[in-house]
């Protein structure tokens, strides 16, 4: 890689290291502390009975079915809502700080006045954003597998890895979406509202549409359903789920790069 590409990718990557470190510590603590309570839940029939008392839609919306089993516990505690949501939020935040809020503050001007193309510049920043999602994926994988071993949570490793990677590509999808928004205009507020609205709507569509016979078929519109629709901790997941999310995320980022090359750059 030439010095130019090193700077275009690693410059913004390095600039986000504090946020990256914070996200890494937070996610690792969340995973480890959740798994640490597994021994208390293992085989406890009281919790399962309490969950059985809840209305079925609530149980389904929060992924609480089978809470007494290893897969059910991880799904309800981490991988139905919290971890995928945090990955989506991380993708949104990294795209915002690396691109939209930097431009809004007038800080891109100095770099874009150098002999680099707009396309290469935003492509480099996009790689840095996806790079941080990848770092968080590795952090969650290591924390999950290590704490499974530590606290005696027995579950098939391949399904855990598949589930975490699916959450990560859901994060990458939201990162790509926000790169597209940032490419279109330097508006951090718009980026955040689009990113979090899509994340929230996606969750609601997946969680609630399956409760209605009329709406159920439409739940496949939700990226959350693409990621988690197969109940991957129990069943594993088909390859297309990874491919569809990753490809959509990358295509959205490419659209952002194309739009960015065609418009005015915001000054301070």
């Amino acid at each position, binding site marked *: 890689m030439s*010095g*130019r590409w090193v700077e275009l990718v690693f410059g913004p990557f390095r600039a986000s290291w504090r946020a990256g470190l914070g996200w890494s510590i937070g996610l690792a603590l969340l995973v480890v502390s959740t798994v640490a309570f597994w021994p208390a839940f293992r085989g406890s029939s009281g919790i399962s009975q309490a969950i059985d008392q809840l209305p079925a839609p609530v149980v389904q919306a929060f992924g609480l079915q089978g809470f007494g089993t290893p897969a059910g516990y991880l799904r309800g505690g981490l991988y139905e809502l919290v971890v995928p949501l945090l990955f989506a939020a991380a993708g949104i935040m990294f795209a915002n700080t690396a691109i939209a809020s930097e431009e809004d503050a*007038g*800080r891109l*001007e*100095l770099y874009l*006045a*150098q002999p680099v193309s707009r396309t290469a510049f935003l492509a480099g920043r996009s790689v840095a954003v996806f790079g941080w999602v990848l770092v968080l994926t590795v952090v969650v994988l290591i924390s999950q597998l290590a704490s499974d071993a530590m606290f005696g949570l027995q579950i098939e490793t391949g399904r855990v890895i598949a589930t975490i990677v699916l959450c990560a590509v859901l994060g990458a999808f939201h990162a790509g979406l926000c790169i597209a928004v940032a490419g279109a205009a330097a508006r951090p507020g718009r980026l955040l509202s689009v990113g979090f609205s899509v994340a929230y709507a996606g969750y609601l569509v997946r969680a609630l549409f399956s409760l209605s016979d009329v709406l159920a078929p439409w739940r496949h519109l939700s990226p959350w359903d693409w990621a988690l629709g197969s109940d991957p901790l129990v069943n594993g997941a088909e390859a297309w789920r990874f491919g569809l999310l990753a490809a959509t995320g990358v295509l959205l980022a490419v659209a952002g790069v194309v739009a960015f090359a065609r418009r005015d750059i915001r*000054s*301070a």
Partner: protein
Amino acid sequence: MGVGVPTHMSLEGPAIRIEGLVKDYGAVHAVRGIDLEVRRGEVFGFLGPNGAGKTTTIRCLLDLLRPTAGRITVLGLDPRRDGIALRGRLAYMPGELRLPERLTAAGLAAAIGRLRGGLDTRRRDELAARLDLDLDRRMRDLSSGNRRKVALLLAFLADAELLVLDEPTNGLDPLMQREFLHLVREARERGTTVFLSSHVLSEVQRAADRVAVLRNGKVLVLGGVEELRRRARQRVEVWFEGPPPAQELAVLPSLTDPHVEDHRFAAILAGPIQPLLEVLARHPVVSLLVEEPDLEEAFLDLFEAAS
């Protein structure tokens, strides 16, 4: 690098040619039809009050903005089509400085060096010493004057054929303003073209060969700096030992808007100063002040005629 004509310089055609440049932001007309040519190797002053369209024009030269209409050629290249090649041959210093807060000046120079394909560390250290700048301090700990120095260092570090400097001395103390003028002269001696925007007449007078005066997105005057100086109005204040010789002063055609107050006489001078000096020489003068008003006032007749 260093002294000597850059080998990559081609000398055909003007350094900058702008034809019929228009830039609108929605309903706001920032630039309303600018035509001008900057010759190779000259220091060109781009003078205008705030909001005249200077920065918008400059940002079009760098392809940061896309013109609504008009044609721009810089160093024989189209900023849009040949942007990468062009930006490799020019250096730009923004007027509004937003630098990465956590980087040091040395870190920023290294980052820009990687994007430009090289960093002359000897030149960097020499410039830092001349500008009295500590390279190891982070941007967020620097005063606005010191940030300005960082930007100047970056601009003069890039051995460029064309320097585009937007309000370069904003916030610099007088000593550094003088150092800046030295840097500009050295650049010109090396054959570099300098495009210098400012809203301060005296700065442009000291540095530039030719000047364009801008207002409301249009060029009002384009000419030599001497000619411009003759057209500019100045504010004159004189303190006399006794009462001011008001009647003698009143007949001078170059003075307007006279005020007399005790021993003080004030007026606006438009035209040669010699007749005034002749009157003053005949009277006991305690103190004399000739200063530059802001641009709107200095070119009041010009601006009024235009609007």
